[in-house]
Structure formats: C-alpha cells, structure tokens
C-alpha cells in the first residue's frame, strides 16, 4: 500500500498543483469571471452579516410597521415607502422592512442553493464513480436510473412534494433534499464517462496490479482527477438550485412565511406590482444578480480549466 502511494502519489499531486496554478492565472485574466466571484463573495458576506446589516437601519425582517402603510395596505410614500428608516421601502399589508427581507433572503437562497448542490454532487459523484468503475450490470442499472431521472418532470414533482409533505417538516431541509435529489443525474453522467476513461489509465492499472483496494483507487486515484469537473459542475449547478428554491417559493410551495425568501417576495408582489413595483424590483434584482454572478464565474472557471471550450465565451 505505502509502496504504490510513494510511486503514484507525488506524481499525481504534482500534476494537480501545476494545473491549478495555470488555472488561477487563466482565471485572473478573465475580468468577467472575477467580477462574478466578487459579487458572490459580497452576497456571502451579506448573508453572514445579515443581522448586523439589517440592524444598521434599525430593523429586522419580522416586525410589522403598519404606520408605514396607507389605508389600502400599500406602502405610503415614494418608491414603495423608501425612507431613512426603510431603505428599500416596506412590504405591502404588513409593513415589514424590505431591506431586511432582502438581506436575510440571501441566507435562504445560499443555504438552499449550496445545500442542494452539495447533495446533488455527492449523489451524482457516488453513482457516476460506481457505475463507471465497476461497469457491467452495475453500470447498466445505474445508467438506467440516470435515464429515469432525466425523464422526471422535476418541477412538477417538486411542486407536488412541496405541497403534500406535512408542514411540521422543516421547510429548508425539505427544499434541500427535494432540489438536491432531482439534480444529481447530469453530474452522475459526466462522472461516469470520465471514470470509464480514467479506469484505463496507466497509473490506475499500475495500482490495481500492485494490489490496491477498490476504495484506494476510487478515492485516491480517480476522484482527485475528477475534482476539477466536480468544481465546475458545482458552480454551474448552484444558480440552478438557487433558481429552483426561488421558483418553488414563488409558486407558494417553497419557504413558508415569515422566513424571508426572494422568490416568495416576488410571488407576493404579483398582486401588488402595479401599485408598488419596487416590491418586485429589489428581491428580483438580488435574485438576478446572484444567479448571474454564479453563471459568469462558472463559465470563466470552465474556460480556464478546459482551453478547448474557450471559444464559448471569450
């Protein structure tokens, strides 16, 4: 065991470190990707420091401010009630502070987006690795399951599940599980394909000949070579999972009130946006920006890793 590690380990790690340094230098030259990354970091910081940020304006996302509404329940004043106290105005009917809702909403988006992506990557990588490495009937069964997953009307299913799972079940966990579960098929397909190719590589065969265990080969030899693919896939999956959470909340089967969610705010805005468009605009812009940032960064990352696909955006 230690023998093959001594022979193969350093070679493999050297290869990864060199490719990651060229990766960084390529990425650094891509200004759009950097802008995307900076935006992502800003949103993550906003999510972490949400209580602090919303307390700066002296608000929280839960307190009702009925005094900020007019008699019809619409926010009083210009731009949906924008004022020194309520920087983004207030929510119609309740008068809750929209700035706090948008700031806290980043927590919901990121927690569900990252959680569901992690789950999808975990499931997809395990299925893909096992299918590609063991081949035979294992591969046949796994590939069929992947096909079935592609045949699922995911959004319809997610809506139906979101509706019938009891309210007592924690909603954020439910969303992570549902969205993650319907998102693993494409990464599984890619990992399977790459594992099939890697299995035939000289160093994997050498390890097998030296008596390395399946676990060692899978996790020490093959998985490290898949890491770049998994990272890129994660980055382009996150905007999709964030979008799914927002869409489900928009449709009324996602995050339940009073937990702030951009999607739900946009859904609530449907009945109000002709009166107070700002209620639609602030959560909408936040959702658009975070999705755009992840997409742009993901594109840049993919181009940096795979020079052949450079054409796709540069």
């Amino acid at each position, binding site marked *: 065991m230690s023998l093959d590690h001594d022979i193969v380990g350093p070679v493999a790690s050297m290869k990864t470190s060199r490719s990651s340094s060229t990766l960084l230098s390529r990425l650094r030259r891509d200004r759009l990707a950097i802008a995307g990354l900076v935006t992502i970091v800003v949103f993550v910081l906003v999510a972490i420091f949400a209580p602090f940020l919303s307390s700066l304006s002296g608000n929280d996302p839960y307190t009702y401010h009925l005094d900020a509404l007019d008699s019809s329940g619409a926010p009083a004043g210009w731009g949906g009630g924008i004022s020194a106290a309520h920087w983004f105005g207030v929510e119609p009917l309740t008068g809750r502070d929209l700035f706090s809702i948008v700031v806290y909403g980043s927590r919901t988006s990121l927690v569900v987006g990252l959680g569901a992506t992690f789950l999808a990557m975990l499931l997809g990588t395990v299925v893909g690795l096992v299918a590609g490495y063991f081949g035979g009937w294992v591969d046949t069964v796994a590939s*069929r399951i992947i096909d079935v997953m592609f045949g699922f*009307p995911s*959004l*319809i299913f997610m*809506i139906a599940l979101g509706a019938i799972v009891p309210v007592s079940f924690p909603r954020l966990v439910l969303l992570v599980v549902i969205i993650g579960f319907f998102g693993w098929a494409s990464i599984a397909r890619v990992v399977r394909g790459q594992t099939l190719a890697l299995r035939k590589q000289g160093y994997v065969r050498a390890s097998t000949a030296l008596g390395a265990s399946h676990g060692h080969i899978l996790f020490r030899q093959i998985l490290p070579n898949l890491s770049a693919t998994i990272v890129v896939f994660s980055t382009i999956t996150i905007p999709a999972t964030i979008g799914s959470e927002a869409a489900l909340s928009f449709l009324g089967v996602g995050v339940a009130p009073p937990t702030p969610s951009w999607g739900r705010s*946009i859904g609530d805005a449907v009945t109000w946006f002709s009166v107070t468009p700002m209620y639609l605009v602030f959560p909408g812009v936040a959702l658009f920006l975070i999705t*755009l940032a992840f997409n742009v960064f993901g594109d840049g990352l993919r181009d940096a890793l795979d020079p052949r696909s450079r054409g796709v955006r540069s």
Partner: protein
Amino acid sequence: MSAPVTTVRTGTSAARTARFVLGKASGMIIVLLVVSALTYAVFVLLPADPAQLACGRPCTPERLEAARGYMGLDLPSWKQYLLFLGGIFAGRTFGSGATAIDCAAPCLGYSFRLNESVTDLITSRLPVTFSIAIGAAVLWLVVGVAAGVVAAIKRGTVIDRAVMIGAIAGVSAPSYLVGLLGILLFGFTLNMVPVSGYVAFTESPLDWAWHLVLPWTVLAILMAAVYARLTRAQMLDVMGSDFIRTARAKGLTEQRVITRHALRNVMIPVITLFGLDLGGLLGGAVITEKVFSMPGLGALLLDAVGNFDLPVLVGVTLFSAAVIIVANFLVDLVYGVLDPRARA
C-alpha cells in the same frame, strides 16, 4: 449503453431500423412503468388522505370508512396501483349501485372535489399549455439558433460579445421576473398587449395570438439564450473539424459550408435539447401560466396543490412524466435519423 461492437450485423437496413425503434420503444415503456410506480408510491405513502378531505363535516368514522371504500383507498397500495393502471387501459368505476361514478378509459383518476375525471380535466386544459409551448418553442428555436450561428461566425467581434452577454443575462433571469416586468411595461404602462387570460383559437385566432404574444416573447427570449450558447459552442467545435476543412478545400462557398455541412451537425444536440424542453413545457408551463393567469395544465396542478386534490396531483404528474418520456423517445428516434452512428 450501446450494443457490443462484436455483434454480427445481419439483416437488411430496414430490419436494423426496426430493431432500433423496438429497442428504444421497450426502453421507454420500462421507464414509464418505473416512473408511474414511483410516483404512485410517493403520493400514496405520504400522509395526505383524500378520503378525509372529501368526507365533509361532521366526518364520522363510518362516513370516512365509506368514503375510503368508495375511492378504493381501503385496498392495499399495490392493488390501488394496479387498479389505477387498469383504469388507464380499460376505464374503471368508483363505488357501486346508484352512486357509482364511471371513469372511461383512459382514466387517470377521478377528482371527487371537482366531480370530473382527471383525464377530462387534462384534455380541457391541454390546448392552453399547447398554445403557449408551441408558439414559444418556434420562436426560441429560430432566434436562439440564429443568434448562436451569427455569434460563432462573427467570433470575437462586438456582435459576438453582445450576443453572449445577452445570453448569459437571459440564462440568469428568472422567467417570472421577466414576465412580471413585461406585464408592467407593455401591459400596464404602454397598454400595448393584454396582460392575462386566454382566448381559444377556435373562438378567435387573432385574439388567441394577441393574448399569447407576451408569454411567447418572454419564454422565447429566455430559452433562446440557452440555445444561443449551445449553438455557438457546437458551431465553433464543428467549424474546427476536418470535414469542414475538406468542404472548404473542395471550393464550396462559405454559405454552403455552413448551411449544408456545419449546421447539420450543430443541430443534433440542439434538437435533443429542444425535444426535452418542449416535452417539459407541454407537461405544464407552471410558472408562465401563473404569471399570465392562463388556465393550462400547470394552473390545474397548482390548483390541485392548493386544495390537496390528490387524484389530480397524481394524474397530472404522471401525464407530465409521460409527455417528457415520450419526447425523450422521439428525440432518440430523430437522433437515429440525423446521426446514423447512434443506430448501432
């Protein structure tokens, strides 16, 4: 995945085509059965009881029992599933005697809340979803592929960058946000188009199209972004390949090289995605229908969700799954026609 290379190729090409089609068709039927069983299992195992909801108040234990027996919920779940499957092919009857309800084949269940069979509900809503999907699909395919091809040909120019920046913004924008902003701008502010509702094509084709202009445009712009990105990437890939160089070396005009040689290959993955997207949309354009208040399949589903109408939920979900799976099958067939290698 594919047949082993060692398979001896026998028979005429017609026989081989038949075998390809039959193989794909049997695969489709297996997937359909698995998906329907899973769907049924998920919804039956979850703690929502349609009898409880239909039993009314006061709900005495006797009435609840009667309702359960009437709906067939007192049977073991595998029997319920078989009855459900049987209903699709032969129709089924709920209850007996004077209060019996007949659900003709293909019976996808019966909504005791709406007193209508799920099949009838779906067929009455399908034209709306179909209208939204078809118009939008034609638009996005044409716009997306055209934009992608132009961007690839003009690679590195301002046009290319503009198309690609527009495309990544389109990919990132949630359809309901763009839809609502569209309603706000073109409906309320400029008063150019109607903002909601659906008029049947048979009633007035002009009104039909007029009510659909905004949903079509919004959906198409966002979906075209995906297609532009895919087309451009494929186009660049294909234009760098040997057979394009050969075609150019033969002295063909650039236009002919692109339309006859490159585009044919670019279209293979595009058509694959198109089939899946169109199938998904036909199974219920949930978000679009909600934003534009259109009474389609998606609206039916959301309605069922709001009222815990389990039979409708199961029926519509299965119908959508079937549409997607059949679309998958058709894509595989088209794939086989476009790319003979896939028929191996």
